[in-house]
């Protein structure tokens, strides 16, 4: 079912571990990272390009705190009949406000996150999703009341 894990070279591992922290805010950030890792810049860029191509690195981008840049976010739990779930998930994904969407095996089996310009927009998207997906038996909006931690970092 799952493809065999591609084994990563020692240098790729070092690159992945390093790139999960901030890229330096300097004119030549790759050159700075290459120096830290003691490889040359051309090789670093080539390895990063390859890691992106095989999908190990999805992208290199800035992550913002939505609330601090004028956006708002939430998590939504939905109950969907299992035979309809793929179809419903696909329709929901069409909204660009949906950033993550997972099937989880429980009573609430579809869990997705939304980031939007306002709470009103989130309510509107959720109203539309309910209206257009009668297969959804229940939908619960669960905005965070408190954030204790956010910071994904994997040591490889």
């Amino acid at each position: 079912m799952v493809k065999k894990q591609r084994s990563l070279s020692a240098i790729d591992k070092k690159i992945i571990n390093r790139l999960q922290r901030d890229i330096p805010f300097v004119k030549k950030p790759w050159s700075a990272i290459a120096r830290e890792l003691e490889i040359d810049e051309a090789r670093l860029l080539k390895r990063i390009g390859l890691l992106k191509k095989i999908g190990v690195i999805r992208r290199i981008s800035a992550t913002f705190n939505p609330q601090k840049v004028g956006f708002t976010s939430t998590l939504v739990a939905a109950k969907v009949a299992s035979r309809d779930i793929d179809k419903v998930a696909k329709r929901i994904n069409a909204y660009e406000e949906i950033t993550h969407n997972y099937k989880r095996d429980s009573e609430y089996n579809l869990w997705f996150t939304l980031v939007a310009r306002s709470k009103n927009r989130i309510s509107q998207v959720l109203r539309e999703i309910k209206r257009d997906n009668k297969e959804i038996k229940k939908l619960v909006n669960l905005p965070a009341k408190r954030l204790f931690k956010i910071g994904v970092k994997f040591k490889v």
Partner: protein
Amino acid sequence: MTALAVIASEVREAVSKETMNNIDKKIISLLAQDIPLVERPFEALASKLGTQEAELIKKLKAYKKSGQMRKLAAVSNHRKIGFKYNAMVVWNIPEDKSEKTGEIMATFNGVSHCYQRSKFQGWKYNLYTMIHGKTKKECFDLAAKIAKKTGFEDNMVLFSSKEYKKTGVKY
């Protein structure tokens, strides 16, 4: 939330939007996407934005300092770097203990996200932790460790059985 609190939060939203000018919005929108693998990526991005490299770098430092930007880094595919399983572990914690407990949960390395959300009818869980592991057992073991440390054992481990979408935010 009371009506007043709702109004206050809408006002806060409006204010934070106003303090961001157009160039900030453009930078945030562009930087939330993949940055180029060229020798001087900020120069390339600045020219797209119609600004200067030095100005963009100054802005990035400012966003980082203010907490508007969490980080500028690689987003990896967890499964492809060996962390094949991700579980959302939900916890039933007495409301008056939730703050303290959330803080303890956040100290675990294997916990990437920890939030408090509302309980609702038919759902007694109010703390949410995202955990990642190389095996399912690793995830269960971590949940057990967290339970032991916090003293609260009532949880549910919800593995993701399908990823339908995982993308960056479109600002």
